[in-house]
């Protein structure tokens, strides 16, 4: 089972990217997680450019999503909401609306911040956006506040409570993938 990790932060030392790497240490058996690093290259959404072939960075994002069984997003919070570049990439990914690659795709949202609140508003906004795009949004959140004190220089998540939250979300995400694979009543 392949989970794609998408960080809403572009910064090299991003706490959210670090949180995704922590997630990679706590995966259920048989699950692998690759962190996507193409967010910076996605151009601003423009319907005039939303044609076939898509801009290369957009095509790459759509292909990465299409090739994943599930997606784990980790988002910082800018002005009480989602980083613009992440929203922009999702706007590309969500089109065409009825057949977009996010439809029915199991997704989960976690978040880290240096403040106390762990990007909870951005997480809620991101869940709303993903739901509107048609994704299968898994409940449960990981709130990593004071992130700069909680992931050590080796990338180890020091906060046990948050680690438990992360393990639970990953388990639920894998469960959503399994449920999607299970036969459906006619």
């Amino acid at each position, binding site marked *: 089972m392949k989970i794609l990790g998408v960080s809403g932060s572009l910064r090299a030392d991003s706490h959210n990217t670090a949180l995704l790497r922590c997630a990679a240490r706590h995966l259920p058996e048989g699950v692998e997680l690759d962190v996507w690093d193409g967010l910076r290259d996605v151009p601003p959404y423009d319907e005039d450019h939303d044609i076939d072939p898509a801009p290369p960075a957009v095509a790459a994002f759509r292909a990465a999503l299409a090739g994943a069984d599930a997606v784990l997003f980790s988002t910082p919070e800018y002005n009480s909401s989602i980083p613009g570049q992440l929203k922009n990439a999702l706007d590309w990914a969500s089109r065409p*609306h*009825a057949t977009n690659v996010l*439809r029915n795709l199991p997704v989960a949202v976690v978040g880290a911040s240096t403040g106390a609140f762990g990007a909870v508003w951005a997480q809620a906004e991101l869940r709303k956006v993903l739901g*509107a*795009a*048609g994704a299968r949004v898994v409940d449960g959140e990981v709130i990593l506040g004071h992130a700069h004190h909680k992931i050590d220089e080796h990338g180890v998540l020091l906060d046990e409570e948050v680690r438990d939250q992360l393990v639970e979300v990953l388990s639920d995400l894998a469960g959503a993938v399994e449920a*999607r694979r299970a036969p*459906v009543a*006619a």
Partner: protein
Amino acid sequence: MSTIESTNAAVLPAGTWQLDPVHSQVGFAVKYMVGTFRGSFSPVEATLVVGADGEAGLTGSARAENVKVQEPSLVAHLLAPDFFDAERTPELRFRSTDVRTDGARVTVDGELEVKGATRPVTLTGEVGEQITDPFGRERIGITLGGTIDRTDFGINWNNPLPSGKSALANEVALEAELYLVKE
């Protein structure tokens, strides 16, 4: 109050009655922001079986993908996990557990399955007079309506208004205008 035995035979004629999908309407209405938003399912299937003793059973089904609203993007959202989750639960079903009549009034207790959840629901309405159509087929019409709480079926989507209230009501009215043709 009339007894079931004395009234069933009068207004629900014995036989197997199939839904005429061309003229029937099965839909829903839900308060959304400043008005009532309506949608429907088309086609739908339904069968009414009335025994010689007046005992009646009504079943029906619709495919989630056949939800009809006026905007394709909204259809896409309605089929997504936020609403009907058509991928996992493509079928909506109804099965009566008790059908009672009182004159032209009809009450149907039954089980409604939406998004994989089955909940009891009571529908009420009227049964029209049996007629013969221009092509020689026997027809009756039944209207039915009722209300459900969509959150009982795991349809929990909402959007908060600036006032803090929710944009979409939980209570959903079900509306059915059934044209039935005797087999």
